[in-house]
């Protein structure tokens, strides 16, 4: 698990604000941001524009984790999903504020700011996005 503070700190903009980027050549959107577009490669170099994603999307698939990593043991069972964002990219995140039996593929979700994990009770707290069903 990434417990190293600088490693997390570098990604605050992505984890807090879902800052991705967009290929200036083909308009494909990436999250997390990429150095270049895998489709346009050299044509995209220097043309990747920063954009903030809406945090809205749809569940493509999900699982209910019953055996979690140490930092997540207190939360089991908890749902994790792959979400397709409105702008195109797919991401992996926890789903909250939703009863497990109400989860389904195709469900519309939006991001919320939550605690993701912490380095024990004395270490740093890492915040970021989770997703909840859209009312």
């Amino acid at each position, binding site marked *: 698990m990434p417990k190293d503070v600088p490693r997390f700190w570098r990604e605050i903009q992505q984890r807090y604000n879902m800052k991705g980027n967009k290929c200036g050549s083909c308009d494909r959107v990436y999250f997390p941001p990429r150095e270049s577009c895998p489709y346009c490669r050299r044509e995209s170099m220097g043309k990747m524009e920063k954009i903030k994603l809406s945090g809205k999307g749809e569940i493509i698939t999900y699982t209910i984790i019953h055996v979690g990593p140490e930092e997540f043991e207190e939360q089991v069972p908890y749902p994790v999903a792959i979400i397709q964002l409105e702008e195109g990219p797919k991401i992996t995140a926890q789903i909250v504020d939703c009863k497990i039996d109400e989860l389904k593929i195709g469900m519309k979700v939006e991001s919320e*700011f939550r605690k993701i994990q912490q380095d024990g009770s004395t270490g740093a707290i890492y915040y970021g996005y989770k997703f909840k069903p859209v009312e």
Partner: protein
Amino acid sequence: MTDIGIVSYGGSIPRLRIKAEELADVWGKDGTRIAKGLGIAEKSVPSIDQDTATISVEAARNALKRCHINPQDIGSIYIGSESHPYAVKPTGTIVGEAIGATPDLMVADYEFACKAGTAGVQNCFSNVKAGLIKYGLAIGADTAQAAPGDALEFSAAAGGAAFIIGNEKVIAAINHTYSYATDTPDFWRRAEQKYPRHGGRFTGEPAYFKHVTNASKNLMEKAKTTPKDYDYAVFHQPNAKFPLKEAKILGFTKEQIKPGLKVSYIGNTYSGASLVGLAGVLDIAKPGDRILMTSYGSGAGSDSFDITVTDEISKYERDKAPLIDDMINDKEYISYGVYAKYTDLLYWE
């Protein structure tokens, strides 16, 4: 004179709830009697992944959704709480980063028991008035701690509200503000301790009532108003009993108090309490409405505000974020076992 006041606001209340009966059963007490005595039927509980930082961010984002200000124009962020996730390292920078307000920013975390949030509002007001900043963001939020089995366990709740203060498109002008403070140890939490201690009935007369009464009276004197001039009054609400009694002392009616009295449904959100109440009033306020709000923080002090709702509120996009009542109604009940796990009681010293 240009109005200085609330440009936007937003609340955030975790959706988990525990009922007074559930708490009482564990400790062999009479839940119905306690619920009636405090006027709190159930309280909000943070989920395992919610804390003062996440509540503050969500409240701030809700405030930003309702207006069209550039977060970069926010020049100061003050967050009042008794439950900042870090003892050293500000909650305010987390919020600043999460709403895109960094880096040209004054930030400080405040603590003054339950009134640190309103102290933040006063500081933002002062900064705007002094011309130091365009907008200020003040937040009162808590995930209040209560020792297992303590009477506080029936009220200590989670929630908060954020207010953007400025002088453009002000939806509610702050006409006057006044504070009253003395050294009164009615409630405290020593450094390094997990749970607070309180003086029982000492928290009443010499503490809450003395400070709230004096602050409100002195403010009204300054504003040359009487209770009749107000459409709404919001007092700090550690339970439902205290603010109702306070209303009587000052001469406010139940009708003036009721709309801002949210404690009965979610418990005492500490630094969030009076601000959540004010947000609840703004949810229904019309142009011209006048509001008196007085917070209370143990230790002890009160901040009182004389507020007038402006015409701007009719154009204000209130529905871009959930109302306080929407958040109160969106809930899921948990057992004491889950509550204990989520609020870290399983590891109490």
